[in-house]
């Protein structure tokens, strides 16, 4: 058997793969949360619900509108993005100048309402979504069997994360976003329409959550509480990476997926808590997070 120092390589690499896949979702979601937190300074509790909405939209598209996976991958993030823009304009904007606690409660409320509606309409047991034909099957590697769809998730989310990182760190639009994060009032005085950038940023973050939802539909069951389950972990990841740090959110997302996977192999009992343990350790030693700037 493929064992080395009592380590079962099949099982270990299997857990690593699962870790990388979870990490891909963590990274995509943490990225959106970090962008929104950076510019709007709100903790977007509806992020998980937007992710769930993305998965359900893909499912509804396939079931009722003959909209296949690939179309969903394009259209659903756009739709969720527009939904995010509407949320920002109609609900979040009016209380933007209040204490941030209000927007936290508001977005939490939105999440509960969405989750409640989908439980009411579709039940809470979860719906199946078939892996698209083109990505069925898999590849046999020396130590593991790699399903094509899972390889696709990892590659695709890496590309999306890298693209977003480039957009924010290397382009003029990104410079507006970074500067707006630091000093929105001065940006306004330079003649930049900051409220518009805020709206588009929220829409973009929401779109990323929707995209993660579509990616997740074929491997996790499409269920109303899928978002709230993952969101708490993603919050921990944003804190570990450093609130508002884009690169930090991506790297920490992937890394924490792997850490979780390794823990599942070596000490499964701790796999649900290991990320929070890391969070505590990071907060104790580096309060601004691994990649955050000290205030």
């Amino acid at each position, binding site marked *: 058997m493929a064992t080395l120092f009592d380590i079962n390589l099949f099982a270990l690499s299997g857990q690593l793969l699962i870790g990388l896949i979870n990490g891909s979702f963590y990274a995509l979601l943490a990225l959106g949360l970090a962008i929104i937190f950076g510019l709007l300074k709100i903790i977007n509790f509806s992020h998980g619900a937007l992710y769930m909405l993305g998965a359900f939209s893909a499912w509804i598209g396939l079931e009722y509108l003959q909209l296949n996976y690939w179309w969903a991958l394009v259209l659903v993030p756009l739709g969720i993005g527009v939904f995010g823009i509407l949320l920002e304009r109609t609900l979040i904007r009016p209380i933007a100048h209040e204490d941030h606690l209000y927007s936290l409660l508001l977005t939490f409320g939105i999440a509960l309402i969405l989750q409640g509606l989908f439980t009411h309409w579709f039940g809470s047991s979860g719906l199946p979504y078939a892996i698209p034909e083109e990505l069925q099957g898999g590849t046999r590697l020396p130590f593991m069997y790699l399903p094509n769809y899972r390889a696709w998730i990892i590659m695709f989310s890496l590309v999306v994360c890298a693209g977003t990182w480039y957009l924010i760190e290397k382009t003029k639009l990104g410079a507006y976003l970074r500067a707006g994060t630091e000093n929105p009032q001065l940006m306004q*005085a*330079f003649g930049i329409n900051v*409220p518009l950038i805020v709206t588009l940023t929220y829409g973009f973050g929401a779109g990323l959550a929707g995209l993660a939802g579509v990616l997740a539909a074929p491997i996790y069951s499409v269920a109303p509480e899928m978002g709230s389950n993952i969101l708490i972990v993603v919050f921990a990841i944003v804190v570990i990476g450093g609130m508002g740090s884009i690169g930090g959110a991506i790297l920490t997302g992937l890394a924490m997926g792997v850490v979780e996977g390794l823990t599942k192999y070596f000490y499964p009992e701790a796999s649900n808590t290991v990320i929070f343990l890391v969070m505590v350790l990071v907060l104790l030693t580096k309060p601004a997070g691994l990649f955050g700037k000290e205030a």
Partner: protein
Amino acid sequence: MTAVMNAQSQREKLRINDLHAFYGESHILHGIDLSIKQGELVTLLGRNGSGRTTTLRAIMNMVGKRSGSININGHETIDMPGHRIAHLGLGYCPEERGIFSSLNVEENLMLPPSVRSDGMSVEEIYAMFPNLAERRKSQGTRLSGGEQQMLAMARILRTGANILLLDEITEGLAPVIVQTLAKVLTQLKQRGLTILLVEQNFRFAAPIADRHYVMEHGHIVEEIHASELEAKTELLNIYLGV
């Protein structure tokens, strides 16, 4: 008669009437009146807390609430959203300089959108501020205080702004840099730019300014032309408490 009036108001770049400004409940400006003609360099003098910075921030619509009239280049702006004001040709340099730490020098320089077509080119700016050229890839806030001040000035010159609102640009800088800034302001004045300068350093402002407004408790209490400066030195010393 009307032709003369028009010619006069055309040359007037900035006119403020009965400006009141508030931060939350506190009433900071109590009816400011001032006017600046094209190519003038005018200072706002006064003690700390007299409302000079607030006057600049009120012009940019960066205060909580404001009322009265602010006419820029012939446009009434009191009800204008903040992001449209710069596009009338205004460039604002805040007291804290406002260099963005998440942007490098070049990104900081290129950040504000052009507000008029004839701004200084990047080459001209690097010729005026050679230090910035050398450090173009450095993080904005890693520059020295003087270099940050140069960057904050350069940034608004690139946009083509022809009315500059400059807040305490010499604060905390070495004398040699203050001299450079005086040279820069003189050059800008020669180019026909209109400048409103909030300044603590009277010895910096006196030789280059055309007029001075003295502020106290949110009012303008005195207007002094450069030619009257000597005669009114005594009075000024009382207002400024030096």
